[in-house]
């Protein structure tokens, strides 16, 4: 555990060049500016959380990062290259897992889709699928269809499919928003250990401020209409995080207060 924590700290050197960067990115859809002049760099291995009131453009920012939208002006770059379309090394976990999984494929089949897209040979797939399902805590569910799985299991499955892409960056759009509190806490810890193991860069969008502080190395709060950065907080809490100890840490409480005040102010 200590090793994972060290690696995480080492990889998030503030001097490192950003892996994923928004440079003056502006996005207008239907004549309405959703995101304006967003400047934000995410360093390799960093866990960045984006919070904000509903409609502040946090999901849109994530879709820009995924290459699903193109900025109206400015740029979004990955490893220094502009993102003109989605890239295989950037995976996105959607909030609505029910819609993002193929209902006619089993759990194994859903993971397999990412491997097929990646050109992994038929003979290699079963072992990979097995390992990925084990990794997200779904061993023994390979032959189940999404409809036969709980919400938490379906979201694990979507995460497994994203990991099958062997992503350098993992974008997560309120992934636990639709899950109950207990499932959510379990998945938070699993995502932290999966990310620590893969050393992927993460952008995690959530409206749950506690979740953002608990998970992130840094939390960015967006202001609405149009979306822009309102606050940026470094989270200097020791890793690995712990559901009880971390949430009782004085620094956690200080950040939480600061973030709540910010959100309150934006809503007025």
């Amino acid at each position: 555990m200590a090793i994972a924590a060290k690696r995480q700290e080492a990889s998030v050197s503030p001097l490192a060049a950003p892996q994923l960067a928004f440079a003056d990115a502006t996005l207008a859809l239907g004549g309405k500016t959703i995101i304006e002049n967003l400047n934000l760099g995410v360093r390799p291995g960093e866990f960045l959380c984006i919070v904000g009131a509903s409609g502040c453009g946090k999901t849109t920012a994530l879709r820009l990062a995924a290459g699903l939208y193109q900025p109206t002006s400015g740029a979004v770059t990955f490893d220094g290259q502009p993102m003109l379309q989605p890239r295989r090394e950037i995976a996105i976990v959607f909030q609505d897992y029910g819609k993002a999984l193929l209902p006619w494929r089993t759990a194994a089949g859903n993971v397999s889709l990412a491997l097929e897209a990646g050109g992994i040979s038929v003979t290699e797939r079963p072992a990979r699928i097995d390992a990925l399902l084990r990794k997200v805590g779904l061993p023994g569910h390979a032959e189940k269809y999404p409809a036969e799985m709980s919400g938490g299991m379906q979201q694990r499955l979507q995460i497994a499919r994203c990991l099958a892409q062997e992503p350098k960056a993992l974008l997560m759009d309120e992934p636990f928003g639709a899950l109950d509190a207990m499932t959510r806490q379990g998945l938070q810890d699993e995502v932290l250990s999966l990310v620590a193991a893969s050393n992927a860069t993460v952008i995690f969008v959530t409206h749950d401020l506690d979740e953002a502080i608990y998970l992130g190395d840094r939390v960015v709060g967006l202001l609405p209409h149009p979306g822009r950065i309102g606050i940026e907080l470094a989270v200097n809490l020791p890793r690995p995080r712990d559901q009880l100890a971390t949430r009782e840490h004085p620094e956690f409480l200080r950040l939480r207060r600061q973030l709540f005040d910010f959100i309150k102010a934006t809503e007025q």
Partner: protein
Amino acid sequence: MTLDRAKPLMLPIGALLAFEGWARATHLQSDSLAPPSEIVAALAGALADHSILAATRDTLFATFAGLAIGSFIGLALGIAFGISDTLDRLMEVTVEAVRPVPSIALLPIALIALGFGYRMEIVIVAFACIWPILILSRAAVRSVEPRLMEVSRVLRLPAAQRVLKIIIPAALPRIFVAFRLSAGIALIVAVTVEIAINPLGLGAGIMLAQQALRPDLMLAYLVWIGAIGYALNMLLTVAQRRLFGRAALSGDSL
């Protein structure tokens, strides 16, 4: 339970019995009507000498061949139009101009080009089957969950794989409904072509019975064709329920 299930049958059975009684009482002499008992006897005779079975084979061959060709063309076009807005707009006028042409109106042209026989009939059946499949599969492709399309973009699935692995499976339940509709149409059109001109199959059989002044045999053919249509629809409904569950049947309202 059994009484409940028998209830809907009581009216038609009663009507048949009444008609049988009336026909016997009046010693019915008609070129168009025959008592049910004679129809049953004629049907049994036609089954016994295999004439109606051979005709059924001919009609079903033309029906299924036309259905297969029409479905393939309709599906390919429907998927292409559903995916590409440009193509759809480009072809819109053409499709809307050709679609309302009653398939049977092609009969004279098809007859000149292909002559009597299976080929002409299959072409006309195929033409009739293209449209429902095209229209419904285009709509089905358009309504594929947008999130799945995004997943395929993020995974960088090549276009062919996107169609094969995402679009077709997602649209399949609704495409099957279209196929079922087309199967019904195919049988109707095949029999119509046979009645109109083509000297084979059940349609030709019914015309032959009429010209031979055999109302019993003519009506036996009619009953048989109805049974074939009913069986075909039942078969496809059961297949649909087996393959896609009850959810797909909601597409019936289309």
